[in-house]
């Protein structure tokens, strides 16, 4: 819960919402030039709606990851991804290097393994046991390898 709150907070201080509401202002100005009061009401409603939608989308999609927590949750990952030269079998190829990937890429990949966008039995099984927050934490841990 605290992480969700953090995400909302971060989002509110972000310039994106400000820019978006200003974008709305521009559009309404062009469309309804002579109706001050109605225009302001409309603008306000649509700005609030935009802000709420953005907040909701951001809070659910981009949970903040905690690298230290992620390190603990990544124990299973390390069993394969921390072994230099480790091979996937049938077919045989190197298990991918992850150190230096972005947290967002790791999150996206884990979600795909879980939801079926990527085929891999073991990864599907592992990702299926993770919550979105777990994925964000693991992503943050892996991103900490970046120099």
């Amino acid at each position, binding site marked *: 819960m605290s992480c969700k709150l953090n995400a909302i907070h971060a989002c509110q201080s972000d310039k994106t919402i400000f820019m978006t509401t200003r974008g709305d202002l521009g559009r309404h100005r062009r469309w309804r030039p002579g109706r001050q009061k109605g225009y302001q009401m409309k603008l306000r409603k649509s700005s609030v709606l935009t802000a709420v939608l953005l907040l909701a989308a951001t809070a659910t999609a981009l949970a903040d990851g905690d690298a230290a927590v992620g390190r603990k949750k990544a124990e299973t990952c*390390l069993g394969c991804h921390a072994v230099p030269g480790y091979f996937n079998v049938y077919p045989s*190829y190197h298990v991918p*290097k992850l150190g*230096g*990937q*972005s947290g967002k*890429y790791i999150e996206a990949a884990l979600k795909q393994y879980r939801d079926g966008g*990527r*085929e891999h039995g073991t990864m599907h099984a592992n990702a299926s046991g993770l919550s979105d927050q777990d994925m964000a934490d693991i992503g943050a841990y892996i991103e900490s390898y970046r120099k």
Partner: protein
Amino acid sequence: MNKKFLSVVIGALGLAASTCFVSAEEAAAPAAGGLSFDDKLKACGACHGEKGDKPLAPDYPTLAGQHADYIVVALQHYRDGRRTHPIMNMQVKALGLTDEDMAKMGQYFSAQGGLEVLNTK
């Protein structure tokens, strides 16, 4: 009239297919005639960085330093629909990547410094 319409449709498809390309027509049009390997490599670089070390979007992977054989498997899976990404599935087909192209791409990106194996510390 028909020809004109067709060329517009083809143009629109080409543009849509190459959101990532530096030059859309260059990359999409000669696919039938055959792109050089360097052209194909440039298409990768447009989104992943020339050396695969500067992904354009936060959820795009770094390729620099990745195992060559893993890159090949990823490309094969995109080609076969076993891994899905709206741009990648389209690119592999639009560029007409051959097995040889995939192998060379794997070698090129794995030779760049970048990714590392995780450690247990």
